[in-house]
Structure formats: structure tokens, C-alpha cells
């Protein structure tokens, strides 16, 4: 088999010219062509996404530069106010604080919390007794499945005075929601997300061939060496996927934090989604709330780009 069979007129290909020779004129039949019947099939999905997803995102960038309000004279007839909102955003101490709180919440609950604990659980379960595996694994997944409002309620009760955790840590009179609110809401979110990370890691661990680990054992590699030299490198793709998925899920979280603390006490848990909601719907500044949301879109887009980049590099 050779390329020249398809170039009957060029028995002696000259380098550089050979590439110019074309197949006979006409349409290539093996190339798939666009079929018009695809349009009605695509239309419902793309139409809905354009009208209720992409359009609103673009609209929110416009709203972010207006004095749109929930109530009052500017609720119906709002105007473009230029960089007024932007200036306010840059000098807004609560927004600055909110950026740090969001970073802590996302890193704490998604990376340190859900991903690390999920990995530890998945690895520990490989060597654990069957009963422990089924019971703990099953219940950790239940924590992931519970609706966010139930997560918030359960953790509110557990972290308050005489609650489950306050008693478990031997401080029944303390109220963790007052003494360490950011830590508690991050832990609650991690508790909620860990099950998903654990499922993803457990599936990836099952795909690691036992033979590699077995031969490492033959070479007298101990458990720690096997984990860091073999298992962890092989898990790298899953680790990247999981960290970024957890990060996006944590960034999107509104319910757990809002139901538990509503951003308080004071502004100590005012992560970006909660601050955006508060400005828009409690302080009536829809325009400014939209601008805070825009900051989140930009953050999420950057993270998505990194995610798509990293997941492509693997293949």
C-alpha cells in the first residue's frame, strides 16, 4: 500500500510538488456534509441556551453598568451609569473581603476538604474491611446526595451550642458558628462534596492494574513508596478533573452558606454569591449585584479554561 496508488498521473513525485497534486475534481463522497435536517434538531437546545443562558449572561454585563434597582424610580427605567459601579466595586471593602473569603471557601472546601478527604477515603477503602467499606462508603455518598438545604440544616444543628460536633469535640457550650463561621461553612460544603470526589477516585483506583503494584511489592517498595511513586502519578488526570470540578461546584455554592449564616456574623462568611444576592435582592441594587456576579463569571471562565486546557494536555 502506498500513497502513489492514488496519484496515477504522478509516477515520479518531486519533493514539494507531490503535495500539490489533487484528487480528481468533484466532491469527495467520504467527507460528511452538513444536513439541513440537523437544524430543527439543534434548535430547541441552542434556542433555550441562547435565550435563558448565554443571553442573560451577556445582559448581566450590561446590567452591571446601570443603576437598575429592585424598587423605586430606577426599577423600570434604569440608565447606563458608565464606570460608577466599577469605581464602587474597586473601593468596596466588603467586596475585597469577599474575594478573600471566597478564595478560602473554595480552596478549603473543594481542594483541601473534598478532594483530599475523598482521596484518603478512596485509598483507605481499598485496604479496609468489607463491612467498613460498604457502610462508610455508602453513607459518605448519602452526604453528597442530600439536598443543599438539608446539608445546611444538619450542619447548623451540629455546629451550634450542644450540637453534635460541639459535643464531639468536648466543647458543648461553644457555638462554632460564632467562633469559626468560615471554617464551619467550608467544612459543611466539603462534607457535601466529598462523596463525589470519593466516587471519582474509587473508579480511577479500580482501573490501576494490580500487576504494577504487585511487581513494585516484589521490588520491596513499601506502601508509602507505592502510593507516591505509582498510584499518585497514575491518578494525576483524575486528580486534575476532580479538583477543578470541586472548585467550580464550590464557587457556585450559595445555598449552604446562605441558609447557615446569610453571610454573617457581620460579613465573616460573605462569599461572592451571597454578597451578589444581598446587594441585588436585599439592598435593592440589582445593577451592582449583577456586577458582582460578572466578577464571578470571569473567575469561573478562567477556571474553566484552565480545566479544559489541563484535561486536553493528557490525551
Amino acid at each position, binding site marked *: 500500500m502506498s500513497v502513489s496508488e492514488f496519484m496515477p498521473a504522478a509516477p515520479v513525485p518531486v519533493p514539494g510538488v507531490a503535495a500539490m497534486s489533487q484528487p480528481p475534481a468533484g466532491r469527495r463522497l467520504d467527507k460528511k456534509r452538513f444536513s439541513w435536517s440537523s437544524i430543527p434538531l439543534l434548535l430547541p437546545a441552542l434556542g433555550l441556551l441562547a435565550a435563558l443562558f448565554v443571553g442573560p449572561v451577556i445582559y448581566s454585563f450590561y446590567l452591571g453598568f446601570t443603576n437598575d434597582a429592585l424598587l423605586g424610580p430606577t426599577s423600570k427605567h434604569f440608565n447606563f451609569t458608565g464606570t460608577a459601579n466599577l469605581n464602587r466595586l474597586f473601593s468596596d471593602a466588603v467586596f475585597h473581603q469577599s474575594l478573600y473569603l471566597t478564595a478560602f471557601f473554595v480552596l478549603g472546601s473543594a481542594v483541601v476538604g473534598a478532594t483530599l478527604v475523598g482521596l484518603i477515603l478512596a485509598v483507605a477503602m481499598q485496604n479496609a474491611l468489607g463491612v467498613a467499606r460498604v457502610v462508610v462508603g455508602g453513607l459518605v455518598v448519602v452526604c453528597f446526595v442530600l439536598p443543599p438545604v438539608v446539608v445546611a440544616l*444538619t450542619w447548623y444543628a451540629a455546629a451550634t451550642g450542644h450540637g453534635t460536633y460541639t459535643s464531639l469535640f468536648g466543647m458543648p457550650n461553644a457555638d462554632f458558628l460564632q467562633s469559626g463561621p468560615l471554617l464551619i461553612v467550608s467544612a459543611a460544603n466539603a462534607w457535601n462534596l466529598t462523596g463525589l470526589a470519593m466516587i471519582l477516585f474509587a473508579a480511577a483506583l479500580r482501573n490501576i492494574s494490580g500487576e504494577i503494584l504487585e511487581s513494585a511489592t516484589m521490588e520491596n517498595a513499601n506502601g508509602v513508596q507505592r502510593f507516591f511513586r505509582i498510584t499518585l502519578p497514575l491518578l494525576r488526570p483524575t486528580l486534575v478533573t476532580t479538583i477543578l470540578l470541586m472548585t467550580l461546584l464550590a464557587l457556585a455554592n450559595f445555598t449552604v452558606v446562605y441558609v447557615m449564616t446569610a453571610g454573617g456574623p457581620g460579613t465573616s462568611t460573605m462569599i461572592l454569591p451571597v454578597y451578589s444576592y444581598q446587594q441585588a435582592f436585599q439592598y435593592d441594587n440589582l445593577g451592582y449585584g449583577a456586577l458582582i456576579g460578572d466578577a464571578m463569571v470571569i473567575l469561573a471562565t478562567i477556571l474553566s479554561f484552565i480545566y479544559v486546557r489541563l484535561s486536553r494536555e493528557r490525551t
Partner: protein
Amino acid sequence: MAVEVETLAAPAPEIPPDAVRVRPPRVTSGRVVSNVTLLVLGVLFIAPLVWLILDSVDSQASPTLQWPHFTFRNFTDAANSANLLALRNSVIISLIAALIATVPATLAGYVFSRRHIPFKGPLLLGILMLAGVPMSILIVPIYQLFAGRNFLALVPASIFLGVTSLPFELWIIKNFMDAVPIELEESARLEQASTLQILWRLVVPVALPGIGAAAIFGFINAWGNFLVPLVLISNSAQQPAPVAMYGFFGGNVIRWGEIASYSIMYSIPVLILYLALSRLFRGGFVLSGAIRG
């Protein structure tokens, strides 16, 4: 200038018949560490769940983890007409959302899986990125769009919730259809079957587990959402269960037993659906497969 590239397959070395591997159950330090770690983390994870269950049957329920003073009163109290109405609203909202997301996602997923369309790669990448956009940023522009048209009600809010699940559902369905062989459709095409016939008779039945998984995802996503109904539904009689539960916090006295039992009633449908999902696929296939693309 035909250059034959000969690839000589190296003869496979003789593999000796596998010796029976004897693996006595040993107590290694690794196992001890694993089991202890699992136990400690397990207790920390499970304690709040145990509290939730015990509190729901405790006549003197409180945030404290204690052996219950057994009663079913909490459940009968929680099942009052307003709370049941909220649960019914949740069912309606989630069904509409799942339908609005799944039907368009199936049609479009088929095209993305089988047909040649211009800019397919960038379009799919864009849809994947939409799946990662935090929902809370859409709420202000959608509120502004809906408020001006008197759309602040159950049905428009449900449709919007469906659209928020659409990107991810499309990915699940497209990836599932990619794994389904194409030969049957090609022969049906030769028999002059229409696109809709092929889709309905051939593709949907074979891809049903994937479509079912996507629909369950859409349902659960809407079932758990709190922000969208809170902002986009103005009539309190149309509010779903999560908003009703948030209302429990409002009073001066928190009735823990009632909240705990209502939480369980509200969580059980999702637990059942996840069980169905794990029956459709073992382990993390749905999520890992859909996300990896």
C-alpha cells in the same frame, strides 16, 4: 515510490501458566492505618446523619445527639397541608425542569454525536463551559427579564431550572450515544427511514440508560435548588420544599423534630433516584465519562 513498511510482530514470549497465588490475610500496618482512618473519618461524617434520623423520632428533639424519646408525632406534624403542598410543588418543578432539559438535549446530543455540523468542536467546548458557570450569576439578569413580563411564577422558573441543567445533560447524552454503534442507523437510512423514525425507534431505545441518567440529573438539580424558586417565584403557595424548610428557621422557636422529619421526607426521593442512577451505571461512570468528554 512505494515504500512498504514491514512491521514485524515480535513473537510473544511464552507465558508460564499462572501459579495459584496464595495470599494469606495478613495484618499489615497499612491495613491498620486504613481501617483506623476510615473509622475516624466515618464517625465524623456519619454523626450529623445519625442526629438527623434520631431527632426525627424524638419528642424532645434538640440539636444535641441523644437517644430519642420515641414518637412519630414529628412526621405527622411535618406532614401538614402547607408542607405537603411544598413537596408537591417540588415534584412539579422538577418534572418540568427534567423534561425541558432532556428532550432538547436528546435531539441535539444526537446531532452532536452523529452529524457533521460546522464549528462542532467550539460549540461543544462552549456548552461544556456553560456547565461550569455558577448558577447564582444568572439570577439577577433572569429576574430582570422575568419581572417585566410577569413571569415570576412556577412554570417559567421551572423552565429556567431545566435550561441550567441542559449543558451537562447534553454532554451525558452525547457521550453515551458516541458509545452506541452506528451500523443499525446506516442500514435504516438505506431503507429510507426518516430522521425522527431513526431517532425514536433506534437511537432512543439503545441510549435509554444515558438519557435516563441525564433526566435524573436534571430532576435532582431542580429538586435541590433553593435560590431560583426563592427569587423567581413570587406566590408563596407555589414555593417548593427547600424554601418551605428555610421558613422553619424564621420563627422564634425552632421545632427541631419537625425540621428533621421534613428533611428526611424531602431527601428520600433524591436518595431513591441516586440508587436508580447507580443501577444504571456502576460507580462513577456517568460523571467521569461525561466530564472527560
